[in-house]
């Protein structure tokens, strides 16, 4: 450990915020770039499953809410790419990594949205799980990331309430709507639990990230918080969590769940989820189809600048 390393760790321990121009260890920088860009990519890819229902939203009010939500996700992507850029990497590089498959994004977005209830389930469960992960990041040691997360969490919690309200309308609606809601819960429950990552005993990097205060709670801790918060919400909706082993441990006050099928998680991570290929292809198509537009914008800006200079000269 060098003296610089020690001084850096001291600042972290003092809960100082690290800023872009401050010295930082390469590992810290690398970890943050990976995590922030992965987070940004998740926001962007996450626009696709929900975007899938914009044209079919069942009322104009719901359509407007969904459009606004997906737009917010684009906005989150923007803040996060900006935060990553403060670490010396360009947005184009990051996009390149996403499109080439080098960079990851949250596996949850490799599941399809099959019915309108999936929009509710994503808001309630996926955004709910995201918030559990993200709220501690508002206190992350890296300043630009922490500040981006404050803004993001505020919007995410609005989305989460909106998603729950949507599920409520279905759960209290016609029998067909209730069935749709239950079906969505059945499909999204386990993938949501997997969003917290592998069990602590298999989780790499954790200790270092905790020391750097990039991470503040373990995967299993966050997962448990999510379960404890969500099970009563499902009960309130009158929906059944698809886990016959689920039970409340009255001694600990925590809900205990049956075993998670990590093989499925591994397969989706490896690219075999129902939509991995389609998600990346959709992003790649948008990027490739848009190339002429971006090129034209650059060419026009150059022309305009040349004209302005001529005028000025």
């Amino acid at each position, binding site marked *: 450990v060098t003296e610089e390393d020690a001084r850096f760790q001291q600042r972290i321990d003092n809960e100082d915020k690290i800023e872009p121009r401050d010295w930082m260890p390469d590992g810290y920088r690398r970890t943050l770039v990976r995590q922030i860009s992965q987070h940004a990519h998740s926001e962007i890819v996450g626009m696709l499953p929900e975007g899938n229902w914009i044209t079919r939203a*069942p009322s104009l009010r719901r359509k407007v809410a969904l459009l606004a939500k997906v737009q917010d996700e684009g906005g989150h992507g923007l803040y996060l790419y900006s935060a990553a850029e403060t670490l010396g990497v360009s947005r184009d590089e990051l996009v390149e990594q996403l499109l080439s498959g080098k960079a990851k994004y949250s596996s949850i977005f490799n599941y399809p949205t099959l019915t309108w209830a999936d929009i509710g389930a994503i808001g309630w469960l996926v955004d709910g799980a995201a918030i559990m992960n993200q709220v501690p990041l508002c206190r992350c040691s890296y300043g630009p990331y922490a500040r981006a997360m404050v803004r993001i969490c505020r919007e995410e919690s609005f989305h989460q309430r909106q998603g729950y309200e949507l599920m409520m309308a279905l759960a209290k609606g016609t029998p067909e709507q209730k069935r749709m809601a239950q079906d969505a819960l059945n499909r999204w429950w386990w993938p949501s639990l997997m969003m917290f990552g592998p069990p602590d005993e298999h989780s790499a990097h954790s200790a270092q990230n905790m020391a750097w205060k990039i991470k503040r709670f373990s995967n299993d801790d966050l997962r448990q918080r999510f379960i404890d918060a969500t099970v009563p919400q499902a009960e309130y909706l009158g929906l059944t969590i698809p886990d016959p082993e689920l039970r409340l441990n009255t001694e600990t006050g925590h809900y205990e769940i049956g075993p998670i099928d990590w093989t499925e998680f591994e397969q989706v991570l490896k690219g075999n989820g129902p939509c991995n290929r389609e998600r990346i292809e959709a992003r790649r198509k948008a990027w490739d189809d848009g190339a002429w*537009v971006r090129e034209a914008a650059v060419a026009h800006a150059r022309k305009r600048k040349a004209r302005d200079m001529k005028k000025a000269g």
Partner: protein
Amino acid sequence: MSTQASSRDALFAYALRLGDTSLVLGHRLSEWCGHAPELEEDIALTNIALDLVGHARLLLTYAGDVEGKGRDEDRLAYRRDVFDYRNHLLAEQPNRDFGHTILRQFLHDAWAVELYERLAGSADATLAAIAAKAVKEVRYHVRHSGEWVVRLGDGTDASHARMADALDRLWPYTGEMFERTAGEAELAAAGIAVDAAELKAAWTARVSAVLEEATLPRPADGWMQSGGLRGEHSEHLGYLLAEMQFLQRAYPDATW
């Protein structure tokens, strides 16, 4: 009584024309969500889509009130088939590439901004209020789409060619914006509606200026397509509605 009824019909038709055009164009824009050429533009297109669907909600709600048969915004949006839609054909044209989308948007926005500026002074308090709200947003839309038309028209050779193609395709759909719905002239005379035919000069001036800056020659006003105001649409609208209306049609008793 008969005059009252016919002026109610005229107002209903007028509100539908504006509302349907906003809704269908907003729908088309919303198809871009997640697929635009760059993230900033994804957000901008979605924003405009949001505004347009917002206008549609106000206008369709008002149309339902005027009609007086208890149809609300969703009933009107989701339970009418293609021949009861009154949107401009321009709005339903498919997205094709970003250049077509943004040119379609500009041709519409240049009309909408002229319309809402005048309609904000309507003797009908509801239309005036809707227009006053819309005009602020539409001023931003027309600036945004106009800037893109310039950028792409006067960008690269490839972008210029695409925009010239888009202009050639879309121009025949611009004539309809200056047609009148049944009774529109009477509504205009009463200070309630804006006579669409009177927007032509201002629209042409605005469009010509942008096309010129974009180095795109303005097409001659040849034969113009028509039919949207009579419910005679292109083959595209049916597919759009089948998709948009699916849930309301499949679950007619549900509340969402």
